[in-house]
């Protein structure tokens, strides 16, 4: 009985007893949920267009962030002042590099593999991952770097709001992250749902040869989605980098996107967002209110547990396309 009380009653009593703490926890969940959603979005874009799970998405985040910081250092040592000018120049160049990467991936990896089974393309993204790790270390070195958040005019410090009978502190960078991610997600879903490219994208995802036969250019579509995924990766890199630092260990956050994808479905942009929020908020609430029961540290696996629960009832994810199979 005591255990049941601790699981089903006590946490809610705590929530009711200190609503400001609850709001604080929800906010933190929202922020990390948004960032998970952002990573998941990178996967969804590429999965939609090519049916490929892009294993390299995590390393693309690191690579984009490293490029940004590396180019910034280079510009500063070349005497470009003031700092913000160098930072925005570096941002533009990093975007350019992601564009070149998208182009190169299409040319070197995807084009020779048109019409091959998905698993082959999946394996090719493994190759791409290791190439980017090696290339990134070769060019930028393996040491962790500081993200140039201040130079990019991202705010720092915290604001406190008086609400729910107490104080809720929010990091300004987190507020900025939530805003930027919202705008970006809205922009991308708009772009892919309302334009001709959106329809072409879904067509390519369904059948390469049929898409080719109606004159859709696979090359163009792939460059577009990989570039979009590159932009998402760069944004993710800046936001995550600003909260800790830029290092190769950042790529494991890609694994955090997996439960989000399972929840949201691999093909749905809204799914990625809702999935990200459920995972982010669920994780923080679970850790804060139920964590102590299990000796804490449940944040690292709770996401997978939530995803498993959903899988039991909706194998295609919350928003995924229902798989129709004729027998």
């Amino acid at each position, binding site marked *: 009985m005591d255990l049941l009380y601790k699981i089903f009653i006590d946490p809610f009593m705590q929530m009711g007893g200190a609503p400001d703490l609850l709001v604080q926890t929800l906010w933190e969940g929202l922020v990390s949920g948004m960032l998970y959603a952002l990573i998941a979005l990178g996967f969804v874009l590429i999965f939609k267009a090519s049916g490929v799970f892009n294993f390299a998405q995590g390393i693309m985040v690191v690579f984009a962030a490293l490029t940004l910081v590396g180019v910034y250092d280079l510009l500063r040592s070349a005497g470009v002042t003031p700092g913000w000018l160098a930072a925005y120049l570096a941002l533009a160049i990093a975007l350019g590099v992601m564009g070149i990467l998208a182009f190169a991936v299409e040319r070197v990896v995807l084009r020779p593999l048109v019409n091959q089974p998905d698993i082959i393309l999946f394996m090719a993204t493994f190759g791409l991952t290791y190439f980017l790790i090696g290339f990134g270390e070769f060019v930028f070195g393996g040491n962790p770097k500081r993200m140039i958040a201040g130079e990019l005019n991202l705010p720092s410090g915290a604001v406190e709001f008086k609400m729910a009978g107490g104080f809720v502190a929010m990091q300004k960078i987190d507020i900025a992250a939530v805003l930027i991610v919202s705008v970006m997600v809205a922009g991308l879903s708009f*772009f892919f749902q309302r334009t*001709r*490219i959106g329809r*072409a994208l*879904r*067509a390519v*995802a*369904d059948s390469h040869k049929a898409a080719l036969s109606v004159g*859709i250019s696979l090359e163009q579509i792939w460059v577009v989605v990989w570039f979009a995924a590159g932009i998402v990766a760069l944004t993710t890199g800046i936001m995550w980098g600003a909260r800790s630092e830029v290092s190769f260990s950042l790529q494991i956050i890609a694994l955090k996107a997996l439960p989000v994808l399972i929840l949201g479905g691999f093909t749905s942009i809204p799914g990625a967002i809702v999935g990200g929020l459920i995972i982010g908020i669920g994780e923080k609430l679970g850790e804060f209110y139920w964590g102590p029961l299990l000796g804490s540290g449940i944040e690292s696996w709770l996401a997978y547990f939530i995803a498993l629960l959903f899988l039991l009832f909706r194998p295609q994810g919350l928003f995924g396309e229902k798989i*129709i199979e004729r027998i």
Partner: protein
Amino acid sequence: MRAPDDKPKSRIGDVLLAVEDVSLAFGGVKAINGVSFDIRQGEIRAIIGPNGAGKTSMLNVINGFYHPQQGRITFKGRTRSRMRPYEAASGGIARTFQNVALFRGMSALDNIMAGRTLKMNVNFFWQLFRRGPAMREEIEHRRFVEEIIDFLKIQDIRRTPVGRLPYGLQKRVELGRALAMEPELLLLDEPMAGMNLEEKEDMSRYILDVNEYYGTTIALIEHDMGVVMDLSDRVVVLDHGEKIADGTPDEVKRNQAVIDAYLGVAH
């Protein structure tokens, strides 16, 4: 409607597409070996032959999926050694596939709209906001697509995801998508495979109508000899990657090489 005195044969014009001496090999396997034939404007041209004769490979060469090692393809007066799928599509070659290749997750309507891809050219900033030219363009294409839907009598399934449709209807949607491209040359790879008699008759009707009303040139691969003999103006017969006969259905039917290829020959 065509005037009754306008006899079928007079609708046939000049050569639209010609393949000359085309050879295609996969490693050591020769799929097509030195084949030449032509397709004339406005005709229904059948390509027949036993399994593995190279018929589908031939269609793939024509619309640029395969690149022959040897030979030339002349389409609308332009000769080249290989087609690219995009060139073929934008030049007016549409096709259907042997094992229906549709965009399964999309509705029938969206599938057919996808066939309009090359006809749309308003830039995407307008599309983003669905204003001005983009709105007009969408409406105009939608009208065209609805005509095709009426023509193929698939009004009631236009919102259904095609993966859920029975096979015969999927084939019809696929034909619709090809027609949405307003093709000059329509390639049909076994349009009636796996259909029952009624569906076959419907499909034959659509093929004849497309040819007659839109004046579309059609090249088709088909196994049902009755259908081939009824529909086509001229027939080319392939066997083991080589051309063994070419002519009107009656000529081909009497050709000894063709009879041998189909029935086998005593050695």
